[in-house]
């Protein structure tokens, strides 16, 4: 519910969660950008000034274990031997801006095998180090020494071991293998993964559509094949419950005398009429979304009810009710909502795994981590699954037959020939209008009556005088289209 100051109806300041969330996300996004900008700094590093040097020395013992782990003075450190193409390398910072100065630092590096002679070694020192040296101290030992080390100094032990000196766990080897894969391989994988996913889904859809082929009727039929609510016809036709189904339901309710639609110069209103007990469950819920306690519900009130929520449980129930009814009538093998939810689950799970992989690659892999292109490709593939899977046909043989009849009726509705003059034309136009809407031919249906006289229906009240058919359509369609689209957009995730 919106929290307002001032008049509760008009509200001087409205607190809308959607807008709030939008600005929250924007704030987080801008803050992140600022953080990166602020801390993405590279040092134009100055040479260290001379420091007073301490007289005492320091001894450090480093051991490389068989699996590549590194132990410094008896404690295992995070750093491991890095696996490179030609050699395995240790680059270990042993002193960094310690705040203490030393006369001499001696580091003893113990290797897991007798490869000291074949190991390339170097002792790097910056920011106030007089001299560094390194030498072989034994068959498996290298000695590093630095003299006159300032308190700001950074000292790094470098040892390039022959391949095979360390034997890391398989998982680490595999990760390294992925890290060292050529960028071109990752680009190829990144291009092929979404492409194959797309082709696979298209093939699956084509195969399903072939199996569930709808016979396009040659002849048209001039009356609805059966008396079912237009929303069910729409669900059968598109396998979706969208704006058209909601709009058609509203017109159907108006035709049945349950509501009236009022066209105002600025905006519109829906009014309660007889509200009989024969309403279907989803129709009742839809009306409860539009009307509160008042008899009339205007554009402002409806917009407020829409804007107050991220999502609407009621609209989800409307959608669910239409699917369930169509499934119970035997038109679908399984509830399309449930089937599409399964695909969406797979798509969404893949998407979030890809995001996790993307972030993990940035954290764990050395730049440039080309593997992130694989995760981006997986995200695209996941979205393709979510989007295309919702088009998977699930109609039964009965559903296909019934739809075939409705398509024959659509032929009649969209026939370009003018309707012959008849005193029942006005009634026919109104009666079939909701079906024309869900079968996506309302404009063609209206054109069939273009040359006929037109009387505004009693369920549509307007201030305009002498309304023709075209004016009527231009007044009604934007209203129901707007309400249908706005309400359909409120369906909760997990509902179609």
């Amino acid at each position, binding site marked *: 519910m919106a929290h307002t100051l001032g008049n509760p109806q008009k509200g001087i300041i409205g607190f809308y969660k959607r807008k709030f969330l939008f600005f929250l996300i924007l704030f987080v996004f801008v803050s*992140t950008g600022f953080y990166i900008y602020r801390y993405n*700094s590279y040092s134009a*590093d100055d040479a260290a000034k001379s420091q007073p040097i301490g007289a005492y020395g320091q001894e450090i013992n480093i051991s490389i274990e068989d699996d590549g782990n590194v132990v410094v003075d008896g404690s295992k450190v995070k750093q491991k031997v890095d696996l490179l193409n030609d050699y395995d390398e240790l680059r270990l910072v042993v002193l960094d801006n310690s705040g203490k100065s030393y006369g001499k630092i001696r580091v003893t590096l113990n290797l897991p095998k007798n490869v000291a002679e074949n190991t390339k070694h170097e002792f790097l020192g910056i920011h106030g180090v007089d001299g560094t040296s390194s030498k072989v101290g034994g068959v498996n030992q290298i000695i590093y020494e630095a003299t006159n080390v300032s308190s700001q100094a950074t000292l790094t032990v470098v040892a390039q071991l022959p391949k095979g000196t360390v034997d890391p766990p398989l998982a680490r080897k595999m990760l390294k293998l992925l890290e060292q894969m050529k960028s071109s391989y990752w680009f190829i994988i990144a291009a092929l993964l979404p492409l194959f996913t797309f082709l696979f889904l298209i093939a699956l859809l084509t195969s399903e559509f072939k199996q569930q082929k709808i016979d396009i009727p040659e002849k048209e039929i001039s009356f609805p094949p059966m008396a079912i609510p237009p929303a069910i016809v729409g669900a059968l036709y598109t396998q979706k419950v969208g704006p058209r189904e909601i709009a058609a339901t509203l017109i159907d309710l108006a035709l049945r005398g349950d509501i009236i639609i009022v066209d105002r110069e600025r905006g519109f209103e829906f009014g309660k009429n007889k509200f009989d007990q024969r309403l279907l469950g989803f129709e009742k819920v839809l009306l409860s979304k539009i009307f509160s306690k008042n008899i009339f519900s205007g554009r402002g009130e409806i917009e407020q009810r829409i804007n107050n929520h991220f999502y609407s449980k009621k609209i989800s129930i409307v959608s669910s009710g239409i699917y369930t009814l169509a499934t119970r009538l035997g038109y679908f093998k399984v509830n399309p909502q449930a089937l599409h939810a399964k695909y969406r689950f797979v798509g969404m799970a893949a998407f979030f795994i890809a995001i996790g992989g993307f972030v993990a690659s940035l954290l764990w892999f050395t730049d440039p981590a080309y593997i992130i292109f694989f995760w981006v490709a997986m995200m695209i593939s996941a979205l393709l699954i979510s989007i295309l899977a919702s088009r998977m046909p699930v109609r039964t043989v009965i559903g296909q037959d019934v739809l075939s009849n409705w398509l024959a009726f659509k032929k009649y509705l969209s026939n370009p020939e003018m309707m012959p003059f008849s005193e029942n034309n006005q009634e026919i136009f109104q009666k079939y209008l909701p079906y024309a809407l869900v079968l996506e031919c309302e404009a063609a249906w209206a054109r069939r009556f273009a040359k006929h006289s037109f009387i505004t229906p009693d369920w549509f009240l307007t201030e305009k005088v002498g309304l023709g058919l075209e004016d009527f359509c231009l007044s009604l369609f934007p209203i129901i289209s707007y309400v249908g689209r706005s309400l359909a957009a409120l369906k909760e995730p997990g509902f179609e």
Partner: protein
Amino acid sequence: MSSPKNQFFNRFLFGGGVLLDLCKWVIFAAVLLVIVHKFWFTIFVVDGLSMEPTIHDKELVVLKRFGTATNVQRGDVLAVKYPGDPDHKKYIKRVIGLPGEKISISDGKVYINNSIHEENYIPFGVITEPNGDNKEWQLSTNEYFLMGDNRPGSNDSRYFGPIEKRFFLGKATTVIYPRFLELK
């Protein structure tokens, strides 16, 4: 009552759907920014005085990533990882010596393969001093010699030696704030 499996299924669909619905554009924008930042170009703030007078402290510079590793020329200003601490220290320096060359410093001048190297980006009168006894470097096929333009106040290859190509981050192309300067 739905089973725990169904409950998880529905909660994931709802929760994941809400997250995806509300944050998808933020996610896409973030992914795009990361790709641009890592593989195309980025901007960074220079911290320090070692590239004076070419680049001043706290200036904002564009760093071009693409093609850096294969197209490095003498005089280019590069961002590199410090080989002694590649995970934490990143420096900006100028390329002086290319692979295979011999670099030497003598009488305040830089010599490449025994020929004096003219450097018009260094102010008149500024000399280049070696680091103690280190006066000569023979670069291998994969090594570059980098120095800051502020020779008396730069920590560079004179101190930590030549840098391998694998430590390169990108090529600094333009100073964009608070002034505009194309780096050549």
